[in-house]
């Protein structure tokens, strides 16, 4: 029994599968709840894509929404404009953002962390504006509507199931990367780029491929968004979305496997509970600040037991001191 529990705990994809199935079954009769699950899945996939690059290699990319946007528009144009199969759209939604991510990595990979973060923000601006301006292809600010649903995703309920499957696949990919030799190399790069290079790690190449993988995964989120909503517009996946995804990853725990998913669930629930969308943004920002100050490793990255033991030990030290003082007083 204990072995089974230990096995289960070490399989994050399995945990997500079980919890996800329970959530979908519980919400089956409520379309709004199912819609929330679909949104959570979209953000979770983008969160996992960011966790790959930020949590492992320490590279803060603020362009995940731009990569997702490229994937979404890619599949929207292929399926809605040219009547190509949805699965072909998925392949393109992975490959095109991945190729773009590789190109971006070649430009920004040599920069310091701060410059890289600013650069990805600028790339995001350029991509989103370019998409909005290329109206002949992308529909401009009106976007593309009537994106066909996949045959395996005819309605919002099946979309939630497909979303969960995609999240599980992405978690599995993240898990494989983390537990591999590649993952160790990325964490070494995050710790010290020069040391990594001296150990024979080709930093630029590794970061390039990781960027491409992260961008491709974000493209999957874009594909899912486009086909679950049947609509995509430039203001659907913006810099705000990139920042929201960053917040989710940090709140959940950037260095953990399930952190991005937990962050996506928690912040989506907060957003849904707050009546006003703008007020929700205020709560997002405050939540990020509080987590950064109090739980910098996020909800799942924090050693809760250690924190509690630390407080108990501090309490017992205080008690011991007051006891010894009392005893010293009695002795005198």
């Amino acid at each position: 029994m204990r072995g089974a529990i230990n096995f289960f705990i070490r399989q994050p994809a399995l945990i997500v599968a079980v919890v996800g199935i329970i959530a979908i079954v519980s919400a089956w009769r409520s379309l709004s709840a199912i819609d929330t699950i679909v949104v959570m899945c979209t953000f979770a996939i983008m969160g996992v894509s960011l966790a790959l690059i930020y949590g492992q290699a320490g590279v803060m990319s603020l362009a995940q929404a731009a990569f997702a946007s490229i994937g979404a528009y890619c599949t929207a144009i292929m399926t809605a404009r040219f009547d190509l199969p949805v699965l072909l759209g998925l392949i393109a939604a992975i490959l095109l953002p991945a190729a773009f991510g590789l190109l971006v990595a070649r430009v920004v990979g040599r920069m310091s962390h701060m410059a890289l973060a600013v650069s990805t923000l600028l790339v995001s601006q350029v991509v989103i504006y370019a998409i909005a301006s290329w109206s002949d292809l992308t529909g401009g600010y009106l976007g593309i509507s009537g994106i066909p649903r996949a045959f395996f995703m005819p309605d919002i309920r099946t979309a939630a199931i497909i979303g969960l499957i995609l999240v599980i696949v992405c978690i599995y990919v993240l898990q494989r990367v983390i537990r591999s030799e590649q993952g160790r190399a990325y964490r070494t790069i995050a710790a010290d780029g020069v040391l990594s290079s001296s150990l024979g790690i080709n930093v630029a190449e590794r970061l390039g491929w990781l960027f491409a993988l992260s961008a491709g995964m974000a493209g999957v989120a874009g594909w899912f968004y486009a086909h679950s909503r049947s609509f995509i517009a430039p203001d659907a996946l913006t810099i705000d979305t990139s920042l929201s995804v960053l917040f989710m990853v940090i709140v959940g725990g950037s260095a953990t496997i399930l952190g991005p998913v937990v962050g996506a669930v928690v912040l989506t629930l907060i957003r849904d509970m707050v009546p006003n969308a703008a007020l929700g943004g205020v709560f997002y920002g405050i939540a990020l600040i509080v987590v950064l100050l109090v739980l910098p490793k996020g909800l799942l990255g924090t050693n809760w037991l250690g924190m509690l033991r630390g407080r108990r030990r501090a309490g017992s030290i205080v008690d011991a001191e007051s006891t010894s003082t009392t005893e010293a007083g009695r002795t005198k």
Partner: protein
Amino acid sequence: MTTLIQFIVIGISMGALYGLMALPLSLVWSATRTLDFAVGGYAVVAGMVSARLALPFGPIVALLIGTAGGAIVGAAYLYLQSKRARGEKNSMTPTLVSVGLLFALVAFAQWQFGTNAVFVDAFPGVLEVAGIRIPWSSVVNIVSVALIAGVLAVFLKFTRLGKWMRACAGSAHDAPLVGIPVRSIQFGTFMLTGFMSALAGLLLLSSRGTFFGAGFALGILGIGAMLVFGMRGLGTALLGGMVLGLVESLGTAFLPVNVAPIIVPVFLLVILAIGKFDHEAGTVRP
């Protein structure tokens, strides 16, 4: 020719505001190796609050809000530095706190003031010189920023507090050795960032107007102004702002309408790719 000169003057006028945000940012970066991304948020909220409240309370409250915003980031920075002293690694965390604050400020502006742009025509009319028509708001921007930069330069060069700030910017590690209260100076520098960004927001209100969504763009422009010539000093920060303003203005005037809006981000990307910003040792080049 007169059109070109008009656009140059407008570009310098807007660039002066970006430089105004970049001035304290470069001080903060030098002293703390932290970027305060929330500068755009301070400017937007300050502008919108000032427009909502009657004189003289509007500008006063606006400046207080900006200063308070800088104080929040400063306090977070100092708290995180004390944790870092105990071995916890968090070099990007203060910057992320400022990102969270920016997000909250922009959302607050949208929640409280709506999505409409706000503009206060405090300096109507144009100044005509040799056939060149320069809006009075542009003149006010340039003169105001020149005065503020002058006062800041005098403050930094001739006052004790200013010299302490320069010492912290030079080496925050060594400054305590000569008795400089580095933590207080760093905190004050963050507050100065908030104050000056709020000032930029007030000037922006009467030049181009402001709206909630401008927070992110202004933040990028303020940081971009600092990056153009690298963090070499106040002069380069101001000059960087002017260059950005010129690029923006001349791009709007002479480039196709669907290219002009992205000229500034592309320009900044090129600057960053060249590597002028790269002050961290150990960055590996592919």
